[in-house]
Each structure stands twice: as C-alpha cells, then as structure tokens.
C-alpha cells in the first residue's frame, strides 16, 4: 500500500493540484536553499577545525524546513542534533547555530524569545519534554503548538513510546515528525524494526498518522499545516512519518563506507529535495539561474557575517564550568570556581 502523500515527483513534476501559491513555494525554496548552504559551509568550517563534530542534514532539507515553516512564531520546536535546518528556519540566528556546533557556550544560551529547545543528543529523550511543553500550552490556553522531531532509530527507544502515549492521553498539541532517513548510524531501518512503516504505530496510540514524501517540500508543508492546525484547534497530536534519506555521513566523524554502498547513496541523490523543488519552480517559470545566483550571493554574505559574529564571541573562562549548575552557586561550586581562577 502506498499511501505516501506526494505532490511533486522526484524529477520535479507536479503530480496533482498544488495547495499553495507559487510565492509561498519560492520562499520555501529560499529557506531550503539557505539550509543547504549552511550545511555545506558548516562542513567546510568543520574540516578547518572551526566547528566540532557536526551532524549534517543533507537530503533532509524539505522534511525539516517544511515542518518548521508550518509553525507560527509562538510555536515551539524541539529538535534532535540533526535539525539545524529546522532551527534556522524557525528563527535561530546562524551565528547561534555556528557557536552551538563549535561547542561554544554563547551558542547554547539561545535568545530569550527563540522558542527552540537546545539540540538533543540522548536519543528520543526530547519527546516527553515536547509533550510537557505542549500540555502546558494547552492548560494555559496559549494556543502554542509543539513540533518534535525524532529519527527512525529514535523510535526504538522507550521514551518515544511513552511520549506518544502521554501525548495521546493528554490530547497535547504536539506534532511528532519522524524523519525516516533510512539509517541510524550504520543500522538500516529494516534492522531497526520489522515493519518499517513507522506510521502504522499511530493507530495503536489512537492518533492520526500520515506518511509523507519528506523530500517533497510541498507535501511536507501541506501535511504539517494540517497537523499543526489540528493540534492548535484541540484535535490532539499527530504522528507524521517523513520519508527521506540521509545522503551524508552520520556526522563529520562518520565513515559510511564501512556500512553502506556509495552507489546506493548516489542513486538517492537523484531524489534530493532542493533540486526537486527548484525543478518544479523552474518549470513553472518561478525560478531561474539568475535568481539562484543572486540568492547564493545573499546566503554567502549572511553566512560570512554569521561566522564573523561567531568568531567575535569571547572565550569562556575556566570558572564558567561551575556556573549555572544551580541558580546560585552552592558551596562546592564556589570552591571550585575559586580553584578555577574565578572571574
């Protein structure tokens, strides 16, 4: 059964009536292209030793950007380490993102008005947090919706299950987006679970489930708008399975040659989301090579500026290690702070 929601073919042809106007798609394209540019440049910085271990998102731009664009300003984004594309789309300054992946404290203290939780490393542990955030929003009738990401591998963790169940029981306004990118480091989805249709779990929790072509920005945005809307209007949580592919290594430290065939990845490059949407827009006369070049210049300038800002962040002091352990330093932290040279 192929119930995957899709509006645009792999080669960028329109398969059915588009639910959005072309302007909206152009700005979505710009956001995706911006994310791709960030990713490419981040990898370069990492190779230069100017970022730490960096988890690339190449190939997942539509899933992330499409999901993030469905949010309103007051909505929350709960990302894993993979979701830098979603984060910068939902308003994270590029310099913050860079400093984050530079493991610099200035990148970890997000601006007060940014409704994004910090990137999560311990797999699936963010999901119960998303439910708590969402339930709080509902209890206070705030109207804010929470978008929570998790990977295919992450769905195996107990926390994923507990969070989905809590969300359903509390009818919390949260949308779970599983980016099924085929891999959890070296483990393919087929060895992660027996039924690789993650969407089939939705019925068990008593929530709607949707499988969507996560490399089709149009489909992703449409599915997410419906889900966000449902959440906002009291309809409770939705499980969205976004079918995508991790084109890059797991992180800059990973060597995928140890576990997967390069040819397979090549093959998958053909359905990558950025060129797919570009093909659609180009065929509709809404995008051109010149527009692309102009955009790239803009993105380059923006990124350069962000790097400059990031570089200007003052180095943390050793004493900062024991700051922010508690609201006010306990005696053990104070002693440590002095030993570390204070300041």
């Amino acid at each position, binding site marked *: 059964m192929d119930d995957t929601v899709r509006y645009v073919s792999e080669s960028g042809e329109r398969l059915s009536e588009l639910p959005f106007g072309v302007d909206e798609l152009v700005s979505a394209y710009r956001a995706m292209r911006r994310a791709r540019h960030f990713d490419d440049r981040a990898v370069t910085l990492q190779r230069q030793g100017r970022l730490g271990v960096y988890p690339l998102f190449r190939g997942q731009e539509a899933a992330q950007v499409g999901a993030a664009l469905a949010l309103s300003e007051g909505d929350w984004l709960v990302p894993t380490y993979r979701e830098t594309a979603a984060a910068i789309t939902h308003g994270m300054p590029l310099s913050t993102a860079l400093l984050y992946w530079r493991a610099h404290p200035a990148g970890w*203290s997000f601006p007060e008005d940014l409704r994004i939780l910090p990137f999560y490393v311990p797999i699936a542990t963010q999901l119960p*947090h998303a439910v*708590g955030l969402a339930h709080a929003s509902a*209890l206070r009738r705030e109207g804010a919706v929470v978008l929570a990401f998790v990977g295919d591998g992450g769905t195996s963790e107990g926390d994923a299950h*507990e969070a989905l169940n809590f969300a359903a*029981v509390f009818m919390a306004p949260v949308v779970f987006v599983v980016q099924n990118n085929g891999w959890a480091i070296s483990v393919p989805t087929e060895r992660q679970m027996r039924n690789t249709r993650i969407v089939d779990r939705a019925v068990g929790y008593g929530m709607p489930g949707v499988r969507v072509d996560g490399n089709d920005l149009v489909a992703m945005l449409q599915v997410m708008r419906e889900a966000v809307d449902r959440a906002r209007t009291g309809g409770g949580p939705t499980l969205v399975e976004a079918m995508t592919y991790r084109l890059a290594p797991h992180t800059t430290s990973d060597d995928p040659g140890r576990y997967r065939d390069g040819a397979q990845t090549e093959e998958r490059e053909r359905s990558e989301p950025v060129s797919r949407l570009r093909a659609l827009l180009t065929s509709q006369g809404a995008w051109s090579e010149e527009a692309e070049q102009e955009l790239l210049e803009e993105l380059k300038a923006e990124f350069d500026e962000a790097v400059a800002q990031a570089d200007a962040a003052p180095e943390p002091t050793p004493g900062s290690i024991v700051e*922010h352990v508690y609201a006010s330093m306990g005696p053990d932290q104070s002693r440590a702070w002095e030993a570390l040279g204070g300041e």
Partner: protein
Amino acid sequence: MASEAPAGAVQENPAVAQLTMVQAINQALDQALASDDRVLVFGEDVGVMGGVFRATDGLRDRHGAHRVYDTPLAESGIMGYGVGLALAGMRPVAEIQFAGFLYPALDQVLSHVGRYRHRTRGRFTVPLVVRAAYGGGVHTPEQHADSPEAILAQAPGVKVVVPAGPERAKGLLLAAIDDPDPVFFLEAIKLYRSSREPVPAEPYRHAIGKARVVREGDALTLVCYGGMVEVCLKAADVAARDGVSLEVVDVETLVPFDEETVLGSVRKTGRAVVVHEAARTGGFGGEIAARIAEHAFYDLLAPVARVAGWDAPYPPFTSVEHHYRPDAARVLAAVRQALLS
C-alpha cells in the same frame, strides 16, 4: 485510612495541628496548589485515588482534575513530561510511587533534569520537584524499599532533600516547590505515619541546603538523615542513660551539602558515625565520611565509622529484613567502638 483527618485541614485553621508526615506533605501540596497557579501535581494513582500513601488525598477534588491528575504508568515519561512542564514555566510536582521506580526515569534525571540549566547557560531551567517514598522497615513488597539517594546526589545540578519528620517535611516541600532548581524529595516510608508532630497550619518554608543539629552532645556526632534520624535520636537516648552524650546532626539536604554544620559538630566532638540505610559501598555516607575525614582531620580522635545497609540488595525476605536496616543497637555498637579509640 479513610478515617484519618483530611490532611489539608486548612478550613478549620487551627494555628498548629498534630499531623503525620504524610498529612504534612498533603498540606504542603494543598497550600502550594492554592497559592500558585503554576503548580501541578501528577503521577501514578495520585488523582482519583489520592496516592498509594494518600499524600495527594483530596487534592484533585479541591483543585481540579487539570491540576492534580493521573499519568500513564511510565516513570521516564512522567519525569520527561515534568521537565517539559518546567521548561514551559510551570511548577510541576511529580510523584514516583517508590524510589526504586525512579530507576526507569534515571535517563531523564541524569541527562536532563540536572543538566538543563548548565548546558543552556541558564536560558532554560527545570524547577521540578520529584517526590518519592524510600527506604524500608515496613514490610513492603520486594523492590519497594530502596534508598537510591547516592545516585541522585552524584548528579550535579539536582538538589536532594530527605526530611526527617512532619514539621520539617512541610516546610522543606514548600521550599522545594519554590526552588528555581530541581529538587528530589525522598520521603521515608517508615516515617509516613509512625508519629505525629505539631505542624503550623500556615504555609512556611525551611531553607534547603542547611543541616541541623537536632540534639546536642559532646562525645560523638551521629550524622544521619531521613528515616535514620529517629534511629539516631533513640541511640542517643540510650547512650545518655549511660552518661554518654551524643550529638545528632540531621543532614536533611544531601546536595548542596552543608559541610559547615557537619564539620562544626565533628570538630567539637572529635568523633563521628555516619548512618544511612542504603547499602554501605557507594552510599552517600562515603561522601560524608570522606569530607569529615579530610576537613576535620586534625580534630578527629577516632576514625569516622559508617553504619549502613549491608552490601546486598535490600532483602525481600520478611523475617530477616529488620537485620538490614540500621537500628539503635547497631548505631550504638559503632559508637562504643569509636569511643574506645
């Protein structure tokens, strides 16, 4: 149990009432719910049923099912959900039925509860309170008598409070709910109903992070907390009959640890015995003893001894269970030994 006075006897409002510890806790929760909208109370069986120990008895009726409610049976979910509520600015108070059932939630505790403020440089904080019944002595079923405070205490960023009776419990719990940091609040099962004590009806707060000298003496300091405080006081009573004057310090807050009060006492008496019911090896008593031995070194007249659970799981076997948990006799044996030195 239905015959107990409704714990939150606020309506009658006597200035002071004789309450059990579980009633004092109930009253603290009641008052916190009444005075702060952001307070939410949740966990397994805390809603309709009022908690397996009745700590939340009546609260759902008084404050509504949207403020006091049952969750699904999943402790990691409870903890993580509580973190989310706290991140959103609520003041969540989660109940974990027994401290041994904190174990499924430890990933949330160790990865997030204690770490969130630090990793986000104060941008996000987790003012979460987690209450859990701990310890043995009342023939609970297997795995219902654990004392895992040392696990929590080794996690930087969390506070660990263990009240020793009704009056302290109420003031500390109200302080914990106000605290900007996450507080684990371990309630000795043995103390829930073992005795009553005058508890002021008005809300009041006791400072977190302070140890208390609960009995003065000069021959030796017993350092203890939670369910062991009454055991140590009893030991001190017995010793007093023999003319030996023991000082008893209730640590009360394990983290942040109040070294000053503990060291002050030991410097005065010159001797210390540390008492807890968790197994000895790796228990929090090691931390306490190490601090005393390091910082009161020149005042010590005898080695710092520890009286603790034996190095075995809390025995599920009814007829030997009472040999596991330290009692006054075992404390006194250690005292005698220390006084010989």
